[in-house]
């Protein structure tokens, strides 16, 4: 599990805990969320328009709205078991039933992304990165004996100025033992701060030694750099470009534009894009990146991703009311940041490559997976290849439009995507073809399973994933994994958590915090 220190963690299991607070919306009628045994007028399989119930903030109408809205827009609406809204007391509990109960090929939940959040929390849209210490970390083991490791620092922050490095292990915060302490609240409060100006004493253990270093850092809204470590690696068979791409966010457009222009001048014959910590963002930016990698010859006129809603909406987006148009590969600057210094419509640079190496992990998600899928959709005749090095990706081809009703914002899967070849079923992610884990059935991609290597800096050609990419490029062979975890692409194989002692991001609200520490660890932690 990778945590950027700005994130707020939501888990489906937490939703029930919110019911009591979320039900108190609107009317002031003493509504306790119960239908009081009144008849709901429910007729199985018959759905009134959701607009009939929108904004009617009593429990029955809220549930009727959810039922109709789900029937109208949920991607797998025909897999929902239609239940009487009066048969389930809580609104959020009822929402929890409005999803498919189908399983994937490996037996996992088909829909892992079903959320409700108080609207006032969700509507706090913001500029900047949120609150952080200027470095990012991974919880390799969140329960004792915990292992929390710096994944990378943000340039220009006090953390980087103090020399905090990828691979340093956080062994204590404010004097509390990170590895074995039972004081979960103290650990969570230090790792996941909610406000600026929070001062924390970190004790780090340095890479490959028992030396420790104490550094005091203060939270701020440090800007996250989405593109880092742009470099050229000289090899006997030509120059290889490398860039670390962390987020499809608005500053990334200009930074990608500059990075590709820089590499254009470096006679690049291959490219490694390090997306192991890229959880996605704007789909259009992924379509731009696809063009900058593969160029006009490979992408001209091709669909990058076709957005697909449920079969009631084959042509019109049911949320925006606009015609559904496929995203083509995009060859021009869009201006995510209005005054970035590059004009909208400017032609993007392209390396016109025949293949790309992508470094991946379970935090390679959503728009990042769309890039992999979009490039894999290029017709075979054009000869483009995606080589995946690292771990299995997260498996989230889906998306949603957050929708408010009665002070709650709901997230239900509404769309998925397909590439030019009509491929889009990667709900268990993509994985290098030698990935071995019977618990998952990812889509195999040419490449090598390699664990995240915290003993080397990102962009260092000795770092295991990058080294494997360079080696595979030279020989066509994958490195022999030293551990079973390596063959799964895991940094550490997690052990079962000790209930109640797992740490995690708990900044959403108190009701969630209580559930958060009790939530079992995900099977895959990195």
């Amino acid at each position: 599990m990778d945590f950027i220190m700005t994130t707020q963690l939501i888990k489906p299991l937490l939703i029930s805990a919110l019911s009591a607070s979320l039900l108190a919306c609107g009317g002031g009628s003493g509504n306790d969320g119960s239908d009081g045994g009144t008849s709901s007028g429910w007729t199985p399989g018959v759905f009134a328009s959701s607009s009939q119930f929108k904004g009617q903030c009593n429990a029955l109408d809220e549930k009727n709205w959810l039922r109709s809205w789900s029937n109208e827009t949920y991607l797998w609406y025909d897999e929902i078991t239609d239940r009487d809204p009066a048969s389930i007391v809580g609104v959020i509990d009822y929402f929890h039933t409005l999803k498919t109960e189908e399983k994937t090929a490996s037996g996992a939940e088909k829909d892992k992304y079903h959320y409700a959040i108080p609207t006032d929390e969700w509507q706090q849209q913001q500029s900047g990165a949120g609150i952080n210490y200027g470095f990012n970390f991974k919880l390799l083991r969140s329960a004792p004996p915990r292992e929390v490791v710096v994944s990378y620092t943000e340039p220009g922050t006090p953390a980087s100025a103090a020399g905090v490095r990828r691979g340093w292990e956080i062994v204590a915060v404010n004097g509390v033992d990170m590895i074995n302490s039972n004081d979960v609240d103290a650990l969570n409060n230090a790792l996941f701060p909610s406000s600026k100006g929070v001062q924390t004493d970190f004790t780090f253990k340095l890479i490959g030694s028992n030396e420790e270093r104490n550094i005091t850092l203060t939270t701020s809204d440090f800007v996250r750099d989405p593109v880092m470590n742009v470099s050229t690696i000289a090899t006997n068979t030509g120059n290889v470009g490398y860039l670390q791409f962390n987020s499809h966010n608005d500053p990334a457009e200009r930074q990608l534009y500059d990075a590709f222009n820089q590499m254009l001048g470096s006679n690049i014959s291959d490219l490694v894009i390090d997306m192991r910590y890229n959880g996605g963002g704007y789909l259009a930016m992924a379509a731009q990146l696809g063009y900058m990698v593969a160029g006009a010859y490979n992408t001209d006129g091709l669909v990058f991703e076709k957005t697909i809603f449920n079969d009631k909406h084959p042509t019109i987006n049911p949320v925006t009311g606009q015609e559904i148009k496929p995203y083509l590969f995009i060859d021009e600057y869009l201006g995510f940041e209005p005054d970035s210094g590059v004009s909208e419509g400017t032609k993007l640079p392209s390396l016109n490559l025949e293949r790309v190496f992508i470094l991946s992990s379970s935090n390679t998600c959503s728009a990042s997976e769309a890039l992999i899928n979009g490039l894999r959709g290029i017709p075979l005749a054009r000869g483009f290849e995606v080589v995946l090095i690292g771990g299995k990706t997260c498996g989230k081809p889906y998306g949603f439009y957050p929708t408010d009703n009665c002070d709650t914002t709901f997230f239900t899967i509404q769309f998925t995507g397909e590439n030019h070849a009509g491929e889009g079923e990667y709900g268990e992610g993509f994985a290098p073809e030698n990935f071995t884990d019977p618990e998952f059935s990812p889509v195999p991609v040419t490449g090598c399973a390699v664990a995240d290597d915290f003993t080397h800096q990102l962009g260092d050609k000795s770092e295991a994933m990058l080294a494997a990419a360079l080696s595979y490029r030279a020989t066509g062979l994958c490195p022999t994994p030293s551990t079973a975890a390596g063959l799964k692409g895991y940094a550490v194989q997690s052990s079962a958590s000790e209930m109640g002692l797992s740490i995690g991001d708990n900044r959403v609200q108190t009701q969630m915090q209580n559930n958060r520490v009790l939530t079992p660890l995900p099977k895959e932690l990195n």
Partner: protein
Amino acid sequence: MRKFLLHSLLAALTLATSSGCNSTVNQDELRPALLTEPSQQEVATLVAQALNTQGVKVREDVFMQKSSLVLESPPFTDAQGNPLMGKQLEMPQRFMLLTDGQLCYLQHLNSEQLLPAPTLSCR
């Protein structure tokens, strides 16, 4: 720049139509602006008004170093630590601070809406 001028023209028309007053903004005089002093709360209020939403967070130094503001989805993540909104189809909400030399204006680029910002001081 071509799009910026178009935005400005449309925004001026929008302002003239929506304000119902006799004066209009001369789009030729509008130019990107910076604030003369930090105005975090005032900007947040104006942005929330433009988006018809309950609340918006902006940085303390909003419009102090650059004339643009881009809002992103809140940084909620799922159980794996990945962004909830990892696949966004729409462009982010984008704003520009403009001035005609006398008054400040907040332009919402997505909607072409131009809001007078009398509580702000621009340069």
